[in-house]
């Protein structure tokens, strides 16, 4: 890893640790929680882990491409939240529940 820029008080490693931790929490949530809302929140966590990563490196490399990219990610995340919530609503109307382990009609 190259030298940290002079005006960067926290070294880039810490960003990576934080991002990795956040990502693991999110992935665990997606894989293990039963409630569809919690899964959606966990997805947001994973996305934000990526954002932190991008921002950290943007600062580290002293160019704005990473930050630029984060703006797009946020927009997509907002759209995804809208779609995800709409799906959740539709599912609830059909099955009166949001516990994903009950949605197993495709069982072979």
């Amino acid at each position: 890893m190259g030298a940290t820029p002079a005006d960067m008080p926290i070294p880039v490693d810490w960003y990576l640790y934080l991002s990795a931790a956040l990502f693991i929490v999110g992935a665990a949530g997606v894989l293990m929680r039963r409630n569809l809302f919690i899964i959606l929140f966990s997805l947001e966590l994973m996305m934000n882990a990526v954002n932190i990563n991008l921002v950290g490196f943007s600062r580290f490399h002293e160019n704005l491409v990473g930050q630029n990219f984060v703006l797009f990610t946020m927009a997509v995340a907002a759209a995804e939240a809208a779609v995800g919530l709409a799906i959740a609503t539709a599912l609830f109307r059909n099955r009166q529940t949001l516990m994903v382990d009950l949605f197993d009609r495709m069982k072979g």
Partner: protein
Amino acid sequence: MENYVWLIPVLPLAAFIVTLLLGRWWIKESAHWIPILAMMGSLGLSLAAFIQIRGAKEPVVVELWRWFSVGSFQVPFALQIDQLSAVMLLVVSGVGLLIFIYSKGYMHGDPGYYRFFAYMSLFAFSMLMLVLASNYLLLYFGWEAVGLCSYYLIGYYYHKPEAAAAGKKAFLVNRVGDFGFGLGVMLIFVSFGTLDYVGVFEQVSAGAAGQGVLIGIALLLFMGAMGKSAQFPLHVWLPDAMEGPTPVSALIHAATMVTAGVYLVARSSVIFASAPAALLVVGAIGTFTAIFAAVIGICQKDIKKVLAYSTVSQLGYMFMALGAGAWAIAIFHLVTHAFFKALLFLGAGSVIHSLGGEQDMDKMGGLAKRIPATYYTLVAGALALSGIFPFAGFWSKDDILGSVWRDGKYLFWAVGLIAAFITAFYTFRMIFMTFFGKARMDEETQKHVHESPWSMIVPLVVLAVASLLGGFLGLPGKLGVIQSFLEPVFAPANHILGIEEHGLKAIDYALMVVSLLVAMLGIAFAWLIYVRRPKDLPLFFGALLRPAYKVVYNKFYVDEFYAATVVRLTVDGSRWVWHRFDEYVIDGAVHGVAWCWQGAGRLVRPLQTGRVQNYLLGMFIGVFVIVTAVVFL
């Protein structure tokens, strides 16, 4: 000639397409016009070609396009005009046109009117292709196409089970012969590397093939001819084919298609002349068929069946002539036979028409005064068939017997002479039973007896004139117009056989007188039995020859023999294969494969839990493994 020849077959083809597509909803009751006009066009162009080819030494070959081009297998889609195909063209389009006109009256009001004319046009196209082909493969195409049309038209009244069965029988029996024909064509290609007539005949004349190969080719081709021209033992389909409408019987099963076998042998005259053993087989089969079918003809009660067996017998005569190397005379008999047999069939159709569909001669009689036009024309046809001077049949049949005599085949000659006697007998038996004596139909039919419309009478009259005068085309010896016209086609074959033109000697006149006397004797005999003493003599002879009569009446049990052997064997064999091979091996293999995959599916089925998180876990693990591998390896 090169630029219009293709139109000769294409005109009827166009008529077929138009009539078939538009006939049902639009043309309907006037469906006859387009085919008739197309046939007129073909006839006109055939006449033009006929006049232009007169005296030409070489055939004219018009290549339209290359049909097959695979390595050394080159087959052009080419039409060939020479004197032989010109004569055939005139017969097919001329007799065809007359029969088309006749059909306008005969088929009037039939629900399948347009269908009839469409198939007839398709037949005309196929037959014209057959005679115009310049190579064996194109000939084979026409050959199969006429067989197909024959199948369609025999089964024209498809709601009648007998008609449907007869169509199937004709198709299947012809397959037997065509199997041989197909093998013959292959053998020609293997031996000579080409299928063009010109190329093949040149190589045969130059002695490029051994005697064994030539005999093989000749016999295989003759097998096809036996099927199509209904020679013993493949004759069984033709009498059954009479289930079709009468114009079909006249055009396809008397005048044109069944003579395709004769045409094939005459066309391949060089091959047959180089294989004398095969030529002997042709003569023997022809002679045997001539008398065999004539004998059966004596005992038939159905007027069309009499004519059908007569056709088989006359085709036998043609093969007898071919067997003696008298190619031109065989074609001459083909032409005269086309005239008078078409006339007889159309006349019989007119009789049937006037009686409202009755075909049994036991229920006819006394019609001479009621339908005079039909009567006189039909008698002209009968005189021609019996070979009475100066009708066409006299000249051609006598030429055949004369040429067989000159060839030294006295046994064939004697058999042919007896067959001529029988021919005259059964022909006039038919005339006497139909037109003489007391009327034997019921009151209702008798009241409705009527002469046929002009569209049926005109073709009858034209054909009657042709039957009267047609014979003068082929006067014996050096006087024969048709013989000298066909000379360029048959010169190579005659050269191989060493046949010279001959002048008329005393023996020829003697033979003529003998055959004329024999024919008149046959007529007199028929007159004695069926006019003079119809009450007791038919019964007397029937009782006297009871066992023989029974055998002949049942057509020598040939059909029964086939049913008990070939058909039985095929059916039982197929059933065995069905129950043993098909059910166990084929079905077993298919079911086995299905069973294997079913088992495999059952094995991996639990992997699909239907829970989305399980799949996601799999995805994460997969990505983790890949990333790890990329980063650390």
